[in-house]
């Protein structure tokens, strides 16, 4: 049972949260010009890394706000937590430099 720090409420047990899959996926703006394959990538394809994963979590039984998490899928260590719309904190910067591909935070 993970221990997760909600950026609004503080540290809470995993059972208070609901997992929202990969974080930082922006909805494409010009959907009509996308091919079926490009659109399919957006709808279906998600990263599945063995290592650091940018995720979004919701504090479902608390403040009900969504926030970003950078978590290691092997060790389950949570490297960084930050609010939607904020820049990722220093602990996550290095990873983002390497992996940023037009993501939103």
């Amino acid at each position, binding site marked *: 049972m993970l221990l997760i720090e909600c950026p609004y409420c503080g540290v809470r047990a995993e059972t208070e949260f609901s997992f929202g899959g990969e974080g930082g996926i922006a909805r494409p703006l010009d959907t009509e010009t996308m091919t079926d394959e490009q659109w399919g990538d957006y709808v279906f394809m998600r990263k599945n890394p063995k290592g650091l994963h940018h995720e979004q979590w919701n504090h479902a039984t608390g403040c009900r706000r969504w926030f970003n998490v950078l978590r290691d899928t092997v060790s389950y260590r949570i490297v960084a937590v930050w609010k*939607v719309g904020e820049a990722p904190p220093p602990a996550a910067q290095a990873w983002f430099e390497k992996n940023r591909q037009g993501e939103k935070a």
Partner: protein
Amino acid sequence: MSKRLDSGGRIDRSQRIRFRFNGKSYEGFAGDTLASALLAQGVRLVARSWKYHRPRGILSAGVEEPNALVQLFEGGRTVPNARMTEVALVPGLTARPIHAEPGIEFDWRAVNNRFSRFLPAGFYYKTFMASQKAWHFFEHHIRKASGLGESPTEADPDRYERRFEHCDVLIAGAGLSGLSAALAAARSGARVVLADEQNEMGGWLLSSDATIDGAPAAQWLQDTLAALRALPDVRLLPRTTVFGYQDHNLLTLAERCTDHLAPGSAPAQTPRERLWKVRAKQVVLATGAHERPLVFANNDLPGVMLASAVTTYIRRYAVLPGQKAVVFTNNDMAYDAAVALHKAGAQVQVVDARSEVTGDLSARARSLGIPVMAGHVVVQADGSGSVTSVQVQAFQPDGQLGQASTRLACDLLAVSGGFSPVIHLYCQSGAKPVWHEPGACFVPGAPFQAERSAGACRTPMNMASCAQDGWRAGAEAVQQAGFPAPGGAAPQLLAIETGSLRPLWEVPHPVATSRAPKKFVDFQNDVAASDIHLAVREGFESIEHVKRYTAMGFGTDQGKTSNINGMGIAAQLLGKRIPEVGTTTFRPNYTPVTFGLLAGGELGDLFDPIRTTAIHDWHAAQGALFEDVGQWKRPWYYPKPGEDLHAAVHRECLAVRHAVGTLDASTLGKIDIQGPDAAVLLNWMYTNAWSKLEVGKCRYGLMLDENGMVFDDGVTVRLGEHHYLMHTTSGGAARVLSWLERWLQTEWPHLKVYLTSVTDHWATTVVAGPKARAVLEKICSDVNFDEAAFPFMSYREGTVAGVGARIMRISFSGELSYEVNVPASQGLAVWEAIQAAGAEFGITPYGTESMHVLRAEKGYIIVGQDTDGSMSPVDLGLGGMVAKTKDFLGKRSLSRSDTARTDRKQLVGLLTKDPQLVLPEGAQITDTEFKGQTPHPMLGHVTSSYMSPILGHSIAMAVVKGGHHRMGETVVVPLRDGRNVTATICSPVFFDPKSERQHA
């Protein structure tokens, strides 16, 4: 023969306890386990083994016990597969052997033992691959023969509790190491939780005659526990197993609260068990080590016991397990048992596989005159039902047996193959163990979470080192948690030389392994060395394969006494080192955990919240039966005396179509949407256009996921300039709100719109039928209900029966219909006022079943019934609702090649040739009759199906491939009973196709 010693032990001889085992009555003392009490009474034979039904006795004195399983207690309180060695004796205790017919003295399935050469590992597969028929015949008998205890068949009357705990240091194990760690950690002021699985804390201290800080072990233990209890923030949890090391230093513990107490003596409301979920800043694992047996012919005879268990029975329980003992060992630790036996008055001799006997314990034994045969092994134990002698041969340094053989008479054989550190929790934490060559065991490697191991579970060590190691670990843990280093020092004991260990995985036999009497590795699953030889011969090279092929380690003991021996034998046969064969993996739970513990209080009515509307009691008083819709209880139908479902539905539906009926629609999701950007949000969420919806108007919307599939629908009402009320399905309300919030927060945080769930704030009465207007006009005078003034799909506010109401003219039944929303606290009063006003028209309450029929007559979909997450709006015949110009969630998917196919399953109506035949929902639809040939192409299935009261014939909605282009065509619906039903594809709107009635 085993017997009780006249003095000594930790039992309370002033408290006699009567109990029953195997149909007989026995007596023991408070402080006994079921195992010690039976041994004290000379009972040797306690079980029959799982496959061969061989007689078995008690092997150990702890949780690692593989043989002595019983069905404990009776009725709803019964526990299958309880280990006798753990069961505390309480008055009235009853226990039965499991899995022996007619009984353990004579078990007819012991015939399996005669045929054992035909029943090795893997025999099911080999025997029954040839003939499926043979398997189906034998399966029934094999099922009855396998398995162990029985599941209870009565409800469990006990309570189970759950608690969270947060602490600075959690220590698993209260033996010498754990107690030393606790002393170091607790005095700093840290919050410490110390848990131990046994009935008493102390671990090996309970069986030890060592001196600690100048006091006898028992005294030191008592003083230490008292000192810990006196500290303010220390929680001692005896009878509590740390059974799982989970994520982020959360550990799960099972506390047994009442099984050790006389029935009825616990304070009221005490749960039988308590689940602790402990989040610890730091963990100390002080879980000790399990002794391994040795693997030799007939090593499973009753009377063969682990040497440390013999010591425990003598010193802790004052039970002498035998009077003429042989101790067979490959290490020095077993000599403690030899000494204990000798001091208790038994005859003892030692057979030591080591050519050179080193160590302080053996020196002590020799100084007492105990004879030792060094460089010898026991190749076979003999006896009928119980050990009476052993065959001993010389064991050369190269592993060969000497020629000459000696027979030693004995009634007890105490064996020791070394100790395996209990690293289960360490492994569960995500870390990897490493092989320790000198100790021939796996030990913890680097930590993965915030923990450290201490004592015998960290590496083989003597007691003096355990105390030091525990202290070190406790000090380190507490400092890591932010507290100062402890003052004082570790408990002091005399250090002893532990001596050498000679690895001995399988004792050789004069005859080949496959022909010698069985040498058991896993006692519980009846896996012998010959099975491992067979597995390796057949090409299984990884220990994971060997384990699965032989079932070694798969019993309720999870191989605690067999894993390492098995790996050693496999490694030897493969010519590899043990770490090359594999590493052991452990997953929770360390020992079996009851379902009750995990269920806690979430049972019966507390399993899931039950949601009822403000009008619920009225429905119940009217005799309504209820249906579960999500967590809601909704009235299903209201049968009058003598009516079944069909009769009630028939009456209710006709009442709505001919006069007026009421439906409690309070359960539908209601989301209040406010803000200047409310319409922007609606345009994103729904397929149709919302910018031009006027204040006071209602519109039906379809909600799609980004894959273009319908996942919810409902009517949204514009209450004001920037104020809307969205309705969702009853079961989808929470999902839709989450969906809306996620998009707003993560994609469009700039939009000024706010959402509030108001489902429970409003009670909703649907008034439907030709007389609906007349009913409401009687109790609402400030709204003009004329058709022109209050058209279909519009909204008015007024006062109904004196209560401020929101009234929406929406119809799901296809009749003239109004949904009257009032604050929930007034819901019942307004419902009753509507009933009174409608009495002269024969107003009739109707439930969800009738609601389903009425809407199906109009071809209206129910999301989740007619849709399954794979239906697009076009599939549902609602392509007209898809806006062409704006983008919305799911829009782009509608033009994906697969979503745009014309042969997709499409929603249609079906009329059966036999108008009285109601198709089963879910029935498959085909083009031709089905007569057993496979594959038979399927075109779709029936989604909704009813007898229509107003039409007098059956109707059905279905999804059929390309159905929209097959109007008028005939299809076949094969039924389970073999009939092939003919039906015609038609429009799903069966009644009032021009929808004149709802516009009345």
